[in-house]
């Protein structure tokens, strides 16, 4: 699990059917200094209503994401599992 | 997946039983030259990959890594993480041919 800053959203018309109706967030993980990006931003599905500027707890647990999306065949791995308090 | 060149094979007599009969190839990942995107360049890295296709030395191949390497009937029970899944014919970037097997 990692904490990342929600920096944006992405929309897609043509996509794997398991993603229909799900919001895609662009989340940037940061290094311990809190300023240097740690790798590329990731796309995560969100059921909690995280928005730009939120610090989101994201997990790469594919099984958890498959349960969340109710799909055994979804290619999505990252999902938001929490939003950090202020 | 990534593009790699087969640079040799590896022979190992002493190996885990499940690997008997599987051909091991030495492969070197290549990447598109990021400055002008007109050619493939060597990354300097090297891997050992199981061959499911029947490749020869010097060929450019497509490599799958990680747990997905076990997602073939031939490799599902093997202790492997790198597999050759295809022989590359052509690589096109921005409409330009950067690799052609025939040339």
């Amino acid at each position, binding site marked *: 699990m990692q904490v990342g800053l929600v920096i944006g959203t992405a*929309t897609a018309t*043509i996509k*794997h059917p398991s993603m229909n109706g799900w919001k895609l967030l662009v989340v940037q993980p940061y290094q311990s200094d809190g300023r240097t990006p740690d790798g590329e931003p990731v796309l995560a599905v969100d059921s909690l209503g995280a928005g730009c500027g939120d610090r989101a707890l994201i997990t790469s647990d594919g099984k958890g994401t498959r349960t969340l999306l109710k799909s055994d065949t979804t290619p999505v791995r990252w999902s938001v599992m929490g939003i950090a308090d202020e | 997946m990534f593009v790699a060149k087969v640079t040799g094979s590896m022979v190992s007599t002493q190996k885990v039983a499940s690997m008997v009969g599987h051909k091991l190839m030495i492969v070197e990942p290549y990447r598109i030259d990021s400055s002008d995107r007109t050619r493939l360049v060597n990354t300097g890295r090297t891997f050992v990959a199981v061959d499911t296709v029947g490749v020869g030395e010097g060929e450019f191949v497509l490599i799958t890594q990680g747990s997905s390497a076990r997602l073939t009937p031939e490799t599902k029970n093997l202790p492997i993480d790198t597999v050759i899944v295809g022989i590359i014919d052509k690589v*096109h970037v921005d409409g330009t041919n*950067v690799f052609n097997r025939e040339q």
Partner: protein
Amino acid sequence: MRIGEVIGTVTLNRSHPSLVGASFKLAVPLTLSNLSGAAPILGEELVVYDALGTGIGSRIAISEGGEAAQPFRPDMKPVDAYNAAILDQINLDDSLNT
């Protein structure tokens, strides 16, 4: 998933039987500074399984690792990168882009 920009195609001469007829694209994962336009796209490309008919220049969602083969279940395909979506729009909050 990472965001990638499609820059090319890879054609196979011969492949594992499970990949016959598959379409493969070359995509470069995009960094935050690529997305904001502050830096040229120089990342290392990867070969992505594409079932969506994606054109060159499109931005896509790249699923990697074991999840990339999940859509084929219960069939097995040795795929470790899969185009999950063609992105129409990426809306970045510019005030956070530091």
